[in-house]
């Protein structure tokens, strides 16, 4: 009975706890990715800012053109990190949902096990009750026969050893004769 209760009460809660932890961890990972994306965004802005240089030279033109190209690639990297962040958040929700479902199934199982156990317990109780009653009844019979035997012995002693025997015999004879 305790084991069943343990299975029924602890397992779904534990599973729910795992679900919350998993979602929390994945949210943490997603937040970490978001922070890195923000860092990259800042670095990208800083990089793009260098294209506004007042330096004038063919080399400066090359530098500006390259910075513009790299700024576009920084955006692509930021987009990839944004994607990763969203996927991680969705993964957290996904895993939590799965574990919630599992906990729900465990709840149903617990319910079924508890019901079965209750039925078995009721049946056992009534069986035991009956048995106990039977036993009790047996014990009372033995006591009654013992008491009867004791009374009979006492009566014999009384009859054999006293005047009352005669009377008893007379009574008995009378009863015997009278009835015949």
């Amino acid at each position, binding site marked *: 009975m305790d084991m069943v209760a343990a299975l029924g009460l602890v397992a779904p809660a534990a599973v729910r706890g795992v679900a919350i932890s*998993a979602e929390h961890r*994945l949210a943490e*990972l997603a937040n*970490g*990715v978001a922070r*890195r994306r923000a*860092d*990259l965004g*800042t*670095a*990208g802005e*800083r*990089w793009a*800012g*260098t294209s506004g*240089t*007042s*330096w*004038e*030279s*063919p*080399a400066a033109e*090359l*530098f500006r053109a*390259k*910075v513009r190209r*790299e700024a576009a*690639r*920084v955006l*692509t*990297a930021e987009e*990839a*990190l944004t*994607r*990763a*962040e969203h*996927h*991680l958040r*969705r*993964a957290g929700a*996904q*895993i939590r949902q*799965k574990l919630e479902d599992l906990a729900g199934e465990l709840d149903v199982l617990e319910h079924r096990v508890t019901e079965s156990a209750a039925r078995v317990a009721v049946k056992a109780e009534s069986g035991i009750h009956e048995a106990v009653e039977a036993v009790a009844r047996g014990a009372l019979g033995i006591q009654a026969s013992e008491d009867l035997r004791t009374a009979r012995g006492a009566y014999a002693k009384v009859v054999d050893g006293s005047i009352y025997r005669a009377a008893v015999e007379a009574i008995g004879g009378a009863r015997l004769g009278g009835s015949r």
Partner: protein
Amino acid sequence: MSGVLGPELREWGIFAMAPARPTGAFAIDFGTVPEGAVMVRASSVQQKIDTEEIHRLEKEVAAVGEAVGEVWLATAPLVAEVQHFWAHVAPEAAAAAHALDDARDLLVSLGVSAADDAVKLRVARTSYEQAEHLAETLVSGFNAVHSVPYRLLFGTALHSGGNPLGLMLAAGSFAVVGGSVFVADAALRGTGAATRSTIAGSGVPLENLRQGIGRAVRYRRGMGFGLVRLTDFRTVETSEPRTTSGPAGVATVVTSLKSAGDHDDVHDAARGPQNQVSLAHVDVQVVDRPDGTRSYLVSIPGTDFDNLTSRTDPNSARSILDAVTVSPETPLEEASGLMQLVDRALREAGAGVDDPVILSGFSQGGMAAMGLATNRDFGRRYSVRGVVTTGSPTSTYRGVDPATKVLHLRDIDDPVPSLTGGGIAPGNEHAVVVVGNTGRNKGPVPMTHSAETYIEAAAAADRELGRTAEGRAHLRMIQEAVPAGSTVRTLTFEASSETYDRRPAAERGSEQAAGHRRDS
């Protein structure tokens, strides 16, 4: 492989070489300006700004590289966890791992690119900083070759012990060897560079000599001896007003200089032989601008070769010494006749202290313009907004107000700008130099010291100046002085000069008393 390396190598080459270009070191010292083209040497101030800017960019890009690297590092444990654990639990986590992989691949590439840029910028900065040193080092080799004839001259002369034959031999060897070296170098690097190297190779401390002579001249004039004053000053020509159709540029200024030279020739000729008294001429263009304000463009022609040895011509060869030895503190009345002529002409034209003035001059005229731009007296009288010189030595005129734009045009085959020594430096840190290669003269020693040379280079100068912010600022200086729609009158002034001694007042007083006695 070469297809990949080609553009990359080219890019490295541009970062290594292009920043050296604005220093002008190679263009001027080695005549690397292509024929028919001009090259703008940025001012030293601008070069400093650019070098500092490249340094700033270098630090910025390096910091970006570090930031990208940090992001890459920081995502490593995330990727490991997502890839090795969560990706097996949820498909979305697997997709996240994939996206993270993509991002990290890009981060590696971006980090490498940033590091690559930082190194290229360092190369560019080194190129900027070291170009002049490198050019100077290479030029010192040429200077050493140019010193050989001088060593030969002095060595042979000393060994001759004063023997006339030995001295003649020394002079002959110098002429042959020196001439050959000069001709070969002029053909290789241009006459300007060859002249600079031959001056450097001679070992003559030209700058010290100039300063010494300058001090002596100023001291003498300060004592009242050998002073120059104008005589016969007058306005000889006033042109009909004309309206400008477009904004002015270097070409406008240089063409005006040529006109001023022509006016000098015409009016000299009109006055007939100038054996006794010769005249100099300057043009002042009075510009009535569309906004109702007035500006002045002064055009000072070069040395008058027709009256080269004249004592009375304010722009003869004799006045060159005045022009070279003038200092910013020299009072105008102790300055050269040509400088006094410009001062007087501007006053006559009506220039006020707040009216913008642009001074321009060719050759000695440019020296006078620079002398005036640095002169304190002149600065108190007029608002000099800009100076444009063509074919002028300028390195001796330091101390022009940084607010005054200074533009020098030179040609690689014009030796005159190098004649006062001082290397390729223009003299003022904020001066911009436009170096051209008109290739007008193809002789054994190309010589392009003429107003026409600079007219030919001016259009290209306008184009090249328009390519940089500093160049555009210089063009703007001219455009603001002579905007489109202005009405321009050209006044031509002439004057001669004479030398006099300013005697002390006491002496003058006793002379006057003696005169009175004689009269009575």
